[in-house]
């Protein structure tokens, strides 16, 4: 089956869907829209044997991907189990990018500098972007990874983050869920982030 067409603005976000990561998740969404790109996540892709095929198709349709391995750790709840989804999706992406280097570029993100050498030593020589586990770190590293001549300032990106964050509770309430990663909430957060980037302004556009 031929791969899907590539969306040159699309960024596949390979991130943990957990409570501790919520503010960084929001920072990625807002920051990516601020840089005039569009994030995609696997939320909304149903389970089952075709899930992996759909994830691969999503990766193939995105020009870029961000793989945040900062929360690859052993779960606290018994039975203690390492979290493999993110490294698995990174593996799929690396293979795809090796096959079609002009179609895909991936970025590795971590919270601290040397964690990756311990968790995935095969990636030695790969220089991850370090966000330090903070919103500021994510936004600043997004500006470093995706260079644009018309990129907004870091302060503008922080203001956009605060703006979208201030509507987070209302968006969750409207969706009738506490799950920030659910498909409907992701859609609304995306629209809000697009609006914060000036995307809804018919005069100028983003």
């Amino acid at each position: 089956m031929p791969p899907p067409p590539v969306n040159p603005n699309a960024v596949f976000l390979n991130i943990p869907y957990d409570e501790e990561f919520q503010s960084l998740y929001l920072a990625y969404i807002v920051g990516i829209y601020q840089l005039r790109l569009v994030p995609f996540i696997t939320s909304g892709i149903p389970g089952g044997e075709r899930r992996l095929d759909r994830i691969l198709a999503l990766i193939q349709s995105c020009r870029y991907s961000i793989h945040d391995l900062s929360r690859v750790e052993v779960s606290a709840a018994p039975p203690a189990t390492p979290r493999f989804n993110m490294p698995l999706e990174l593996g799929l992406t690396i293979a795809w990018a090796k096959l079609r280097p002009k179609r895909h570029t991936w970025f590795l993100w971590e919270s601290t500098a040397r964690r990756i050498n311990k968790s995935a030593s095969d990636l030695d020589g790969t220089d991850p972007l370090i966000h330090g586990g903070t919103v500021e770190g994510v936004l600043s590293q997004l500006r470093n990874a995706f260079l644009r001549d018309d990129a907004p300032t870091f302060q503008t990106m922080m203001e956009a983050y605060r703006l979208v964050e201030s509507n987070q509770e209302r968006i969750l309430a409207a969706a009738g869920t506490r799950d920030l990663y659910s498909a409907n909430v992701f859609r609304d957060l995306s629209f809000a982030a697009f609006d914060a980037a000036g995307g809804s302004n018919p005069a100028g556009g983003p």
Partner: protein
Amino acid sequence: MPRSVHITVPPLSYEAMVKLLRIPKTRQKQLRAMMDEARARLAAEKLNSTSVTSAQEEKLDNASAAS
């Protein structure tokens, strides 16, 4: 993996974006209104904190002038 890439592609238009997000018109309106409210609220907060800071600075200046 590169350290950075230079992005030159034009951003998606509003129409392309709403099509991609599959977001109904009514929800677009609600979210835009929500964002406008938040903008106004944050601007008012900023203004308020600026005037509080100015008042505090003025008070300190007056106190030091008096002493």
